[in-house]
């Protein structure tokens, strides 16, 4: 019971703090694509992979008092930051969450900015397509983000790095 909730709390606890809903969404999506056991369903929204289920789960965890949500003012908009509470730590201590390789991947992803993670998650979303097609998709569907070919190349390299980090878990 609440295994999926525990996985999310564990992810946030491991990362320490995750700033921004977009960043949180992309981190969980990328982790899921790396075969870590996250079961939230993602769909391609107008601007990238997004999970309503994850939004609901985060909201529940905040209501339960297991996660702390702080609204921060950024330049021109608000951003939400998430961290684990003491009650969340207690809850996590009685759950069995075994994802040892997740920590290295999470800490790395949390150091990246949301814009780059959005690109990485989009590349992963189209992982059944050839690289050229993926590039074309990104230029068409994410034209407003103005990603460069170099950034797309960087995203591919980054995915390879993450896959290596995820390997000790036998996940990928």
């Amino acid at each position, binding site marked *: 019971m609440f295994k999926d909730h525990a996985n999310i709390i564990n992810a946030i606890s491991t990362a320490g703090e995750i700033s921004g809903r977009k960043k949180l969404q992309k981190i969980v999506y990328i982790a899921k694509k790396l075969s870590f056991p996250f079961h939230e*369903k993602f769909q391609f929204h107008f601007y990238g992979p997004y999970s*309503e289920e994850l939004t609901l789960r985060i909201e529940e965890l905040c209501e339960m008092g297991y996660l702390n949500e702080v609204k921060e003012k950024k330049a021109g908009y608000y951003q939400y930051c998430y961290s684990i509470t003491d009650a969340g730590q207690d809850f996590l201590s009685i759950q069995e969450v075994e994802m040892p390789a997740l920590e290295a991947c999470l800490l790395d992803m949390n150091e990246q900015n949301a814009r780059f993670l959005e690109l990485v998650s989009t590349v992963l979303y189209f992982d059944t397509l050839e690289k050229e097609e993926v590039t074309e998709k990104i230029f068409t569907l994410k034209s407003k983000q103005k990603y460069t070919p170099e950034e797309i190349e960087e995203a591919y390299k980054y995915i390879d790095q993450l896959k290596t980090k995820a390997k000790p878990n036998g996940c990928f």
Partner: protein
Amino acid sequence: MEYSAEKLQEEKVFKDPVHRYIHVRDRVIWDLIGTKEFQRLRRIKQLGTTYLTFHGAEHSRLSHSLGVYEIVRRIVDDVFEGRPEWKPEERLLSLCAALLHDLGHGPFSHSFEKVFDLDHEHFTQQIIVGDTEVNKILLRVGRDFPKKVAEVIAKTYKGKLVVSLISSQIDADRMDYLQRDAYFTGVSYGHFDMERLLRVMRPREEHAVIKQSGMHAVEDYIMSRYQMYWQVYFHPVTRSAEVILTKILHRAKHLYEAGYEFAQQPHHFYSLFKGEVTLADYLKMDEAVMLYYFEAWEEENDAILKDLCTRFMNRKLFKYAEFHPSNSQMNKLMELRTLFKKAGIDPDYYLVVDSSSDLPYDFYRPGEEEERLPIHLLKNNGEIRELSRESEIVDAISGKRRTDHKLYYPADILRDESTKKNIKKQIRTLLELSD
């Protein structure tokens, strides 16, 4: 004549309780309707377990799919046709995507996908691009045509206007299901002036806009949607049936993994249990097949599977209590789980928290992730304004998510004092359940 432009000699019409008639002139559409993958949707109910609450809700995903097609046909043929922003070459693509958008739904989709970790959108894509009758027809239109249809449904097609007709906050999908579900459930919510909405809809490069004069029709549509979610889609009794259905599937999977010998071998489920579902396996699954197994499993030796199937088939559903997630409520839940175990009732199957949540309308905020395409109003001076900036009613509910949590349990077992009388009494006290 090219297949894509081929028309039927005479227009075909289907009688429909919502739109009166569904009109088909295109050969491609007629052929798609006749495929076995589309006909399979007759055996998938649009509203899953809702028929156990609203007995009329037996309508299928096939009738909804035809309805969405009809709405898109009216938009592109009667409203967009001849306007400079509309590309007529995208007409057939829009119609096919509308007709096929729900093709990959499985039986009782919500529970089915949750237990077996599946995604109907993935199967919709597979049916369209895989080795199917649907694919063969789409290929006759053009080599890339199946891929384009799949992209529109997956919201990854470059032409955002076409995508928005089927997936946005005011799309043909919602316009059909709100009216159809209202009709078949018999509720008085869910009605809005669709004719008016269609008349005031105008194409723009990335989405459709609504003329300012139609704002009140849009308000009505949004409020209808709000009411339908809370009065029909999230009805607590429907959710009780959904909880039991989910637990049946979990139990059957668990028993298979534990090496249990089923009296009624679940042949149709083996690939699902193993997580190796092929498209062919998936297409064989529908609600008729699933209900057949549920009936057969009423005779199984496993007490839990037998009980859950009997409950579902005979509508002996779980009762529910309000549950507001908080630290104290979670502690109470843990205490209840312990007591359930002491009473010999497996809490993994008989004590379930279910949550429903809806966001009636939202607009894009920089830095946020909701990323819903807002509804835009076209003012008389040509200016385009986001809906909630013009409508006080919509502004009042914008971005406000409403969530409901319930705790489900079998009241009949807890009231049966033939065993574990004292423990059951403690449980009833905690649940505030009368004797």
